[in-house]
């Protein structure tokens, strides 16, 4: 019995990666939930616009790297973030002007909006392919590890090692700052409150003199910022491929729905629920159990419930279960 080794292995392979991944999903799900709450439709272009925004960040990063500009131990991508965010917000506002605003004017049904966003998704996907290509790109630089496995073993003398990659730590810190800032904005500022009012009761908000177009612009700006943050952090932590970003749509929606659509706190909790479920179910638990099982009882199999390739099946399973048994989600959001 070596519970410390078990815990270190668990942290290294499940807790830390899931926490980082959960933060990335939470940022994406926050965008989905805000757009759903304010504009009242499921934004299917989320993943692809995230890929485009991250693409802008990557190109800017390469430009900076070519100039020899860097941030020392931190990834250069942090410097490129403002450019990506600005570009994405402009792109979203252009899409709103050209597509969504018309449907708002004619008071189209939510399903029409969803289909329109599907169209925006295809167009965005094409643009991203033109600029970035379909293949994997790397843009991480700076210090790779805060704690590496070998250093950890040398310090502690344990059999198991623990690594904390800088991208993981960065993800957690940036996500936390973004969330705190978002909640401060929504709960303390006049603009934020007007957004919540509009989400709560559109007609009464109009009656109170809240300008809906302004609320819409702020919503896109916040969603765009969150998208680029999520995309860049995901790219630094794992890797950048436009198709992977499109696939993230599923965990994003699952997280937003699990937490309760339209509820920001729900999106965050939902993000972590999805991430820990994906990791927990696709992890080979033998490595942890070996340290906990009594002598001679060590498992011979991998103790892996599902192969890693099936991680989206896990998310899909959660989504289906929530929609059947608690369609409003944990925090009583709206139903689709």
């Amino acid at each position, binding site marked *: 019995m070596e519970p410390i080794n078990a815990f270190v292995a668990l942290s290294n392979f499940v807790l830390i990666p899931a926490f980082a991944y959960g933060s990335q999903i939470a940022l994406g799900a926050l965008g989905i939930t805000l757009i759903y709450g304010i504009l009242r439709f499921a934004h299917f272009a989320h993943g692809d616009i995230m890929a485009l925004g991250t693409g802008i960040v990557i190109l800017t990063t390469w430009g900076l790297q070519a100039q020899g500009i860097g941030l020392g131990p931190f990834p250069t991508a942090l410097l490129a973030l403002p450019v990506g965010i600005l570009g994405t917000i402009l792109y979203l506002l252009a899409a709103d002007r050209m597509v969504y605003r018309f449907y708002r004017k004619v008071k189209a049904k939510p399903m029409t909006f969803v289909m329109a966003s599907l169209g925006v998704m295809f167009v965005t996907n094409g643009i991203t392919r033109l600029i970035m290509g379909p293949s994997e790109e790397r843009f991480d630089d700076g210090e790779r590890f805060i704690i590496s496995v070998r250093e950890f073993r040398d310090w502690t003398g344990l059999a198991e090692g623990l690594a904390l990659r800088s991208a993981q730590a960065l993800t957690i810190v940036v996500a936390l700052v973004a969330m705190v800032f978002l909640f401060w904005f929504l709960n303390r500022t*006049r603009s934020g*409150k*007007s957004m*919540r*009012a509009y*989400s*709560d*009761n559109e*007609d*009464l*908000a*109009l*009656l*109170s*003199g*809240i300008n809906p177009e302004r609320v819409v612009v702020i919503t896109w700006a916040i969603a765009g910022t969150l998208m680029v943050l999520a995309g860049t952090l995901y790219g630094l932590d794992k890797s950048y491929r436009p198709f992977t970003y499109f696939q993230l749509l599923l965990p994003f929606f699952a997280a937003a729905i699990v937490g309760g659509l339209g509820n920001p706190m729900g999106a965050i909790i939902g993000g972590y629920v999805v991430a820990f479920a994906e990791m927990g179910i696709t992890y080979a638990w033998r490595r942890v159990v070996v340290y906990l099982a009594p002598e001679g009882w060590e498992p011979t199999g991998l103790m892996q419930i599902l192969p890693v390739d099936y991680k989206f099946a896990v998310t899909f399973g959660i989504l289906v279960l929530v929609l059947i048994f608690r369609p409003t989600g944990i925090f009583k959001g709206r139903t689709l």
Partner: protein
Amino acid sequence: MSEPVLIGEAMTGGYGGADILHSCTIAVEKGEIAVIVGPNGAGKSTAMKAVFGMLKLREGQVRLLGEDISALTPQARVRKGMGFVPQTANIFPSMTVEENLEMGAFIREDNFRETMAQVFELFPILREKRRQAAGELSGGQRQQVAVGRALMTKPTVLMLDEPTAGVSPIVMDELFDRIIEVARTGISILMVEQNARQALAIADKGYVLVQGRNRYTDTGQALLADPEVRKSFLGG
């Protein structure tokens, strides 16, 4: 007689197609309570919506303090000094009571703390529950939030669409008491009511509408005393 604070004069119109209102006139004087009553489908709410600009008029005119506002949108009328409390969905349920009042004052550039204090004075229970989500309150308290929200713009006229719909008789009496208090501060009140007897009892002026036309118009007391009105509309 001098010009009333608010008057919808000879209003004719409907939601496209056939007219619902036929030369209907509704007016309210300063600090007075005017009540619109009538049978179901008489166009009570429609008349109020017409005054508020939620219905296009084919004929007639709406004037606020002598100014013709017939062409203005409801939002613009709020800025001119009209407060409106819809019958349903009249609060922001997930926001706190205090935030509801803040949103009511959204168009105000000046400091609205004083008005909020006045609203809290009028509805003490709201001060107590100001940090609670408005959607968690009881029906009567929600109506208080709704009225309070509309008062935050310091309106000249407050319009209430069936404020007592779905609340208990005790709560209804209390709400009416508060509405009288609001009127005493100089705000004119125009309301549509289903509970005709109780509403006319507090009304300075009553309008009985039938099929979109003015049938009887008199003081609340006179209408209550009128045997014909009693027989046809107040159940004897």
